[in-house]
């Protein structure tokens, strides 16, 4: 209250040489902070109660979404509803909405890709956008020089992303935590700066324009239809990603990643090749970034280096952390929120970043584990406990 005093209450008018005292503002601030402090205390109390429950080893099914996921009776209809909504979406909403949604889907895939590296393998990668740039530029350049179409560029972009992932992976394998973060941060900047300054290769800051949108067996769409088509391709890509990432994280490799995140030394002593495991995580994460990069170039039809700044990496990382590292649903939700919220908050754009920042701080205070907690959903049911026990008895 006292800190805001000088700004809100005293108004000095230098022209009329008068000072007006606006006491009503002070009352407002007082009342506001009074209620906020109550809210804060309530939230803190809830958090403490939650911690207590955790300490007692109770399994908390707090979020509605978790309950939704576990109960097939609720899950099926919800899934069908979602599918119908997704298909109908482009025919109900405007061109602008479809575009936003496509961008959001791009972030979903990016988030899921980074989730492999950060969420599962626990390697903090701050330069993820570099692989995204690699994908985008590979399509743009291949198309410019050789007229390669989207469908050929997609696997090539993914492959190049993977290659760069391995290239970055090798030198940083012995690094951990903060050191790894710094190196990946540097790598991200290197790629961007090379693209910005190597004029002969990448056309520098002016970027590459007129990148063709995806075609359908050579058939070019009108702008309206192309947008819808792009949207559906993106839906397909997102589904493919969810499908593969889900399988990966429940596989032998996925378990090795999680073990690596939990305890590196124990992991090695249990016979897991640290080098190989880290490299696969890096390479796979980068593969998806490369693929989506191609998609991004095709969607915007124009790319230049400022699309791939550190800010972009930071947003993708926030998606993973906010959504719940390691949890697929969490990351999807995080991506949708983080990419859609700024769009819909355009009306109040002065406060957009403020609200964004406040949300982040509150999230980290009250739900540091992310929106959707990474429940060990790999409840593999032992196949023959009963038969085994019978044999023993």
């Amino acid at each position, binding site marked *: 209250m006292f800190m805001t005093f000088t700004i809100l209450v005293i108004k000095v008018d230098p022209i009329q040489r008068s000072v007006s005292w606006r006491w009503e503002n002070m009352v407002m601030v007082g009342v506001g902070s009074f209620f906020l402090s109550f809210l804060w205390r309530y939230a803190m109390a809830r958090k403490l109660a939650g911690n207590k429950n955790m300490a007692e*080893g109770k399994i908390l099914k707090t979020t509605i979404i978790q309950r939704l996921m576990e109960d097939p009776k609720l899950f099926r209809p919800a899934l069908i509803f979602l599918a119908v909504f997704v298909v109908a979406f482009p025919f109900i909403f405007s061109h602008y909405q479809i575009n936003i949604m496509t961008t959001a889907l791009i972030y979903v895939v990016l988030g899921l890709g980074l989730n492999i590296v950060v969420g599962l393998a626990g390697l903090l990668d701050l330069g993820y956008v570099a692989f995204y740039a690699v994908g985008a530029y590979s399509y743009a350049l291949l198309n410019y020089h050789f007229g390669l179409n989207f469908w050929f560029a997609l696997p090539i972009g993914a492959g190049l992303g993977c290659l760069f992932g391995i290239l970055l992976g090798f030198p940083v394998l012995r690094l951990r935590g903060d050191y790894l973060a710094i190196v990946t941060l540097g790598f991200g900047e290197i790629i961007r700066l090379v693209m910005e300054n190597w004029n002969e290769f990448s056309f520098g800051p002016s970027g590459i324009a007129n990148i063709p949108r995806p075609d359908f067996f050579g058939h070019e769409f009108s702008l309206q239809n192309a947008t819808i088509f792009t949207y559906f391709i993106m839906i397909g890509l997102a589904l493919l990603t969810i499908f*593969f990432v889900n399988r990966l994280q429940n596989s032998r490799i996925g*378990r090795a990643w999680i*073990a690596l995140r939990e305890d590196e030394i*124990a992991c*090695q*002593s249990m016979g897991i090749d640290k080098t190989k495991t880290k490299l696969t995580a890096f390479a796979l994460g980068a593969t998806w970034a490369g693929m989506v990069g191609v998609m991004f170039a095709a969607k915007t039809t124009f790319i230049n280096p400022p699309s791939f700044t550190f800010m972009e990496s930071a947003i993708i990382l926030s998606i993973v952390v906010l959504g719940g590292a390691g949890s697929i649903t969490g990351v999807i939700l995080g991506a949708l929120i983080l990419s859609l919220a700024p769009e819909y908050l355009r009306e109040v754009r002065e406060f957009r970043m403020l609200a964004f920042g406040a949300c982040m701080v509150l999230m980290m205070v009250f739900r540091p584990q992310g929106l959707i907690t990474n429940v060990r959903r*790999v409840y593999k049911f032992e196949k023959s406990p009963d038969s*085994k026990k019978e044999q*023993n008895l």
Partner: protein
Amino acid sequence: MKDILEVKKLTMDFGGLRAIDNLDLDIQEKEIVALIGPNGAGKTTFFNCITGLYQPTGGDIVITPPGKPAERINGLKPNYVTQRGLARTFQNIRLFQNMTVLENVMIGRHCRTYAGVASAMFKTAFQRREENKIVQDSYEVLEKIGLSEYVNELAKNLPYGAQRRLEIARAMATDPFLLLLDEPAAGMNPQETRELDDLIIRIRDREGISILLIEHDMKLVMSLSDRIFVVDYGRKIAQGTPDEIKENPVVIKAYLGEDLDAQA
């Protein structure tokens, strides 16, 4: 009886500090060997050298897995050492806290299985069969160790004694011929220690796995071990059967201090 692990003149320096000094040790098939010594004697360092976490400065570590030729394993990476059949536990429990008990053991199966990225993505028949087998094998290990009631519990929620046993279970899952236990009874109550005693004997008798253990609980060491090695300041000061060690004046001196009898 033949040696399955033979350590000759093992030396480990940390800068100017010699943590292990020309240590010799051998373990035979189906033997339980204890490595004891005062705190800071270099016991855990010795484990770390054998399992590849440290690169020994000098000496030889030779293993002879049953039915396989002898092999020198100095300086091999930890995962290759484990692959060759040496599994260990840790003094300060190093479980994968946020994974379930079953998953912890499944990690142990990692080095005995092969499915890669591509087969996981396309869920090939091979991968599915292997995955089922991993679950099956892991569950069997849990039953052997007596942890099957906790299968789907998170490792961090387990009682302390069970966590210690889970570490053993995880190590067992790698199909070792030699199990290295680093203070398995640390922090256990007498009841749990007795159960551990039985468990270790059972592992040796039923699975035919040799065991090398570091332990401070003398009752456990004396009742379990076939032979005992005593180290102090990185040097071996005695070796022999439990009865011999009990009587050994050098050992008593190392544990109880210099000239205690004379002053008394």
